[in-house]
């Protein structure tokens, strides 16, 4: 998903744009929408930081910073005591250890969709349910189905077959979440996890997943009010810092040529 946060002294507007592979084309639209809501013209924005998987494809950004650094900063602004971040987005998942708002170690998985939120999107699609419903459905299950395939595509087939066998939907969904929780927890355990643990990214909106992950780790994980936005908030904070530092030196920050145009896709 594409998210834009505009910040002055505090957050002036934030927009979460539609998901899907078309994100890059939509970045400018989301930006325009955010400017609209804040009632600001684009040229009044002193600095733009792009982050996330598609950060290189933002033609109107002044600087690209990885989501690892941005998430760390964003989360720290909400949870000063946070030590570990687990971020599960649509393209990857990662674990970040932080100290004073800065990442000190991280692991990530971005090769296989089965370890990302994309896995849930595909299964939801196959099962004909909304991604937003998955969490609640799973929480109703007492008897999660065992999903034996790891691969998204194989698991997709497996849930179809299991559904035909008459296994209740909620148990299937719970099984799917458990399978993702397993994979993510195995990965983040490669860091020596310290508490407090914060879950971010779109998947943190899934209450069933929050539960499944807490169960796997053996202690609760916290979720920020808008888990989708932490990365963007972090990017804004880092952008502000850069702009301020430049100001202290009485310079204007190094900026790129920006273009708020649509990228042609398809």
């Amino acid at each position, binding site marked *: 998903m594409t998210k834009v946060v505009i910040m002055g002294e505090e957050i002036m507007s934030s927009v979460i744009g539609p998901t899907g592979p078309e994100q890059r084309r939509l970045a400018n639209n989301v930006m325009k929408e955010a400017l609209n809501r804040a009632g600001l013209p684009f040229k009044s924005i002193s600095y733009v930081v792009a982050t996330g998987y598609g950060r290189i494809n933002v033609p109107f950004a002044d600087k690209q910073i990885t989501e690892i650094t941005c998430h760390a900063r964003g989360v720290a602004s909400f949870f000063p005591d946070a030590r570990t971040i687990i971020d599960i987005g649509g393209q990857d998942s990662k674990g970040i250890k932080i100290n004073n708002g800065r990442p000190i170690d991280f692991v990530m998985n971005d090769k296989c969709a089965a370890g990302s939120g994309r896995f849930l999107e595909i299964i939801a699609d196959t099962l004909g349910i909304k991604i937003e419903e998955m969490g609640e459905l799973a929480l109703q299950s007492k008897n999660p189905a065992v999903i034996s395939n790891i691969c998204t595509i194989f698991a997709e087939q497996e849930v179809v077959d299991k559904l035909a066998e008459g296994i209740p939907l909620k148990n299937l969904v719970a099984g799917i979440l458990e399978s993702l929780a397993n994979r993510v927890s*195995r990965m983040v*355990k*490669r*860091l*020596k996890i310290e508490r407090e643990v914060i879950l971010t990214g779109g998947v943190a909106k899934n209450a069933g997943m929050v539960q499944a992950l807490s169960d796997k780790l053996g202690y609760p994980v916290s979720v920020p009010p808008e888990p989708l936005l932490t990365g963007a908030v972090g990017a804004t904070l880092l952008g502000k810092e850069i702009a301020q530092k430049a100001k202290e030196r009485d310079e204007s920050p190094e900026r790129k040529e920006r273009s708020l145009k649509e990228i042609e896709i398809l």
Partner: protein
Amino acid sequence: MAEEKKKHKKRRTATEAAASIGPMVKEFISGTLRAKEEGRKVAFTFIVCLYDEILRAMDILPVWTENFAGICGAKRDAERFLERSESLGLSRSLCTYALCGIGFDQWREELGEMPPDAPWGGQVRPDMMLSSGQILCDPRNKWYQASQLYMPDVPVYNIDLPYPLYEDDVEFTDVRDYYVKHIIEELRGLVAFLEKQTGTKMDYDRLSETVDLGERTWNLIWETYDLRRAVPTPMGTGDAMNTMVPMCFMMGTQEAYDFFLGLNKELKEKVARKEGVVEDEKYRLLWGGGLPSWFALSDFNYFNSKGAVFPAETTYRMIESMYQIYMPDTNDPIERLAWRWFGYWVFWHNKARKRPGSHPDVEWLIQYIEDYKIDGIVMHEAFSCRTWHLGLIWQLNQLAKIYKPIPVLVLGKDGKKEKTNRELPSLVLESDIIDITTYSEVDTRNRIDAFIETLESVAKSKVH
């Protein structure tokens, strides 16, 4: 290791001897815990490192770390230790025995006590660790050094055990003297280390006795396993994966000898009664390489259910009786051990030289195919152990190139049927020794089904 099947589906063994292994393993795990309490010295050890008899003669109790990992695997309780190792920075692509062991040890050291619900009471903290540097296996060279990071006070002794690879222009006899000399030196170094650790001197008469006992046991095992040539075969590889326990973990003890006496008797009786692993033996297969998936030994039963049996395997096996292994006239037990090592690893060199395109590893397969009337070969490619699993595919390919034992008729150019020979069919299974996340029962059984269909179609086309 295999006996943990009880917890899951109980695996059916063909022999009583194999069924008796469970308590035996349990006993020597708890035995090491007891010994430690009683103040006896315990050492971390690997199989196939030549020091079995030396340890026995010095009353040092070996803790077979591969065995413990195997047990965790068979109990399907290795995952948490594997994950712990990963959290230390060790890749899942490394030997999962080692990962399981290091993960367990680190956890025990961190807690100062056994990790919760440790399988069979857990793996004891050792007084010393005996690694070995050999062509055979890097983890044997690196594992204990890695564990030492979490118990720096426990000394490691690494014993170098080389053997020559097969070359065109160098015969093993050209290099034998300096190989054996080095091995002898290394063994003497080990003895000196052990003497220092225990504060007692080696009793060489006793060592001679244990080496003697070891050699007698070796021969007995060879003889006993050879009984499996019988048709129908009285014991399969599934059982051999149990009876490997006294072979690999108890050499140099009377118990091991007695165990194989019992097995020998049992097999002879079965052979006399023509009692096979399965009632209607259709296909005789060679387990041609690879360690099994310890959590899925019941796959052997699945083979059996299709009329397929495994009279032989190259895994955990004495290649030949000691009589066939070159041994100079010496009474020095250390020298005997060194010669045994050398003789074992070059055993097939001479045979390989006689067959164009052959190689010792391939020659070994051919020998067993002929001795045991084999119809097909199964290998297991365990993804985390390079040691036993690299080169298997090549062995199959090379074998197929130089050895075609099945007579068939083909349609020749002129339309007439001609007799030719074709290769043995083979199956490669892919999974791991203890990492259950690599295994799929459906997939595995599907492959076995297809392989059985292959054997069927080959049997049909065979001309007698």
